C-alpha cells in the first residue's frame, strides 16, 4: 500500500514538473519527457501487474491534462512499460550511453506511434502535424535521452532508499 502510494506520488510529482517547470519558455520547445523516463525506469524495476497499473494511471493522467481527447497516452504508456519489461535482463543498461540510447529509441517509437494513431483516428488529414516531428520532436527525444542517466541515477537512489520495494516486488513476481 505504502509502496503504491509512493509510486503514485512520484508519478504525480513528475507530471507536475512536466506541466509546470518544463512548460515554461524557453525550454518549452525542446523540453524532455521526464514521465517517459519514469515509466521506462519502472519497466525495469517494477513487477508487471502493479507497474502496468501505475503506467496506465500515469498515461491516463497525461491524457487528462493534455489537449488530446483520444486517450492516446493511456494506451501508449502501458505499452511502453511492457515493451521495456521485454527488454529487462536482455539489455545492459548500466552505462550512461546505453541508457540514453534506449530512452531515445523508445521516445522516437512513441512519437511515431502517436503520429500513426492520430492519422488513423482523425478523419481529416493531419499534414500540419508531420513537420514538427523533425523540427522539435527529434531534438526533444534526443534531450530526453540525454537527461535519462541523471534521472535514472536519482530514481535508483529513491528506489534503494525504499528496501520494501524490492521485497514486495519479488513477492509479486512469485
Amino acid at each position: 500500500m505504502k509502496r503504491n502510494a509512493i509510486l503514485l506520488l512520484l508519478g504525480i510529482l513528475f507530471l507536475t514538473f512536466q506541466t509546470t517547470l518544463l512548460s515554461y519558455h524557453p525550454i518549452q520547445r525542446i523540453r524532455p519527457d521526464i514521465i517517459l523516463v519514469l515509466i521506462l525506469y519502472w519497466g525495469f524495476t517494477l513487477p508487471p501487474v502493479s507497474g502496468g497499473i501505475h503506467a496506465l494511471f500515469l498515461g491516463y493522467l497525461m491524457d487528462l491534462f493534455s489537449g488530446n481527447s483520444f486517450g492516446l497516452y493511456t494506451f501508449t504508456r502501458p505499452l511502453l512499460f511492457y515493451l521495456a519489461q521485454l527488454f529487462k535482463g536482455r539489455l545492459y543498461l548500466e552505462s550512461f550511453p546505453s541508457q540514453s540510447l534506449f530512452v531515445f529509441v523508445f521516445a522516437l517509437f512513441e512519437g511515431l506511434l502517436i503520429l500513426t494513431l492520430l492519422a488513423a483516428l482523425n478523419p481529416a488529414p493531419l499534414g500540419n502535424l508531420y513537420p514538427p516531428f523533425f523540427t522539435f520532436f527529434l531534438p526533444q527525444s534526443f534531450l530526453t535521452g540525454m537527461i535519462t542517466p541523471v534521472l535514472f541515477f536519482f530514481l535508483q537512489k529513491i528506489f534503494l532508499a525504499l528496501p520494501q520495494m524490492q521485497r514486495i516486488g519479488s513477492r509479486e513476481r512469485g
Partner: protein
Amino acid sequence: MSLRVKQKQGVTFVDALVTEIVSPFQRASTFLIKTVHGVFQNYVVLVHLQRENLLLKQKVAELQKENHQMKEVAYANERFQKLLQFREKISPPVIAAEVIGGDPSSWFKSITLNKGEKEGIRKGMVVIAPEGVVGQILKTAPYHSTVLLITDYSSAIDAIVQRTRAKAIVEGRGENRCQLKYLLRSEDVIVGDVAITSGLGGNFPKGLMVGEIRKVEKREHGIFQYAELVPSVDLTKLEEVLVIPEAPPPPLEEKGKRGKKSPPRSGQKKK
C-alpha cells in the same frame, strides 16, 4: 632651567650625542609599534569591513529580492489593469482565471486553468486574453479546466481578414503558429494583415483578434492560397485569461442524435 632657556646654544654636545644615539632606537620602536598597530588596526578594520561587506551584501540581496517582488507586483498589477480594462470593454461578463499548467505532451497544445464548473465554466466556452483569442474550453472539472489552444493541430476557428474581409479557417500548427486554410487564391492578402474571428460557427464572438499574417504563399495551381499566422497572444507566456461564459451551442453529437448530421462547427475539428 631658566638659564638653559636663555642660552642660545641648543643642547650640549653630550646631550646631543645621547639624543642621536637613542633616537634611532626610538624611531625604530615607534615604527615597529606603528606598524604593528597599523597591521592590527588594518586587520581589525578589514575584519570589520568584511563583516560590514557581508552585511551589506545581505542587505543588497534583500533589497534586490524586495525589488524583484515589487517589480513582479507592478507587472502583475499592469497585467490585471489591462485585463480589467479589457473586461470592461467587452460586453458579456467574463470569468478571470489563472493558468496553472501546460500540456504534458509536446504533440498537443493546451493549458490548465484554476477555475472550473463551480465558477460556471463549461465545455466549449471561449477563452481570450487582452491581445486576442486563446482557445476554448476542452475539459472541465469542478475547480479546474483544460483549454485547447488555437495552436493545437485539432483547433479550427472561422475567421476573416480584417482589411479585405476574406474568409478562412484558422488551424493550429503547434509551436505558436497557425495557418489560414481555405483562403481563396483570388483574395488580396498581404503580410501584416490581421485575422479576426468571423462570428460564424457559433462559438467565438465576432471581432476578436486571432493573429497577424506572417507569410503568404500563392502556388501556381489550386484555388486556395496558403498563409501562415502568428497568434496575437503569446501562448507560451500566458499567465491569466478570461473565459466568456456564453452558453455554447449544443455539441455535435447531441445535434446528430437529435436530427440530421450537420457540418462540424468552428472551434474544434471533428474527431
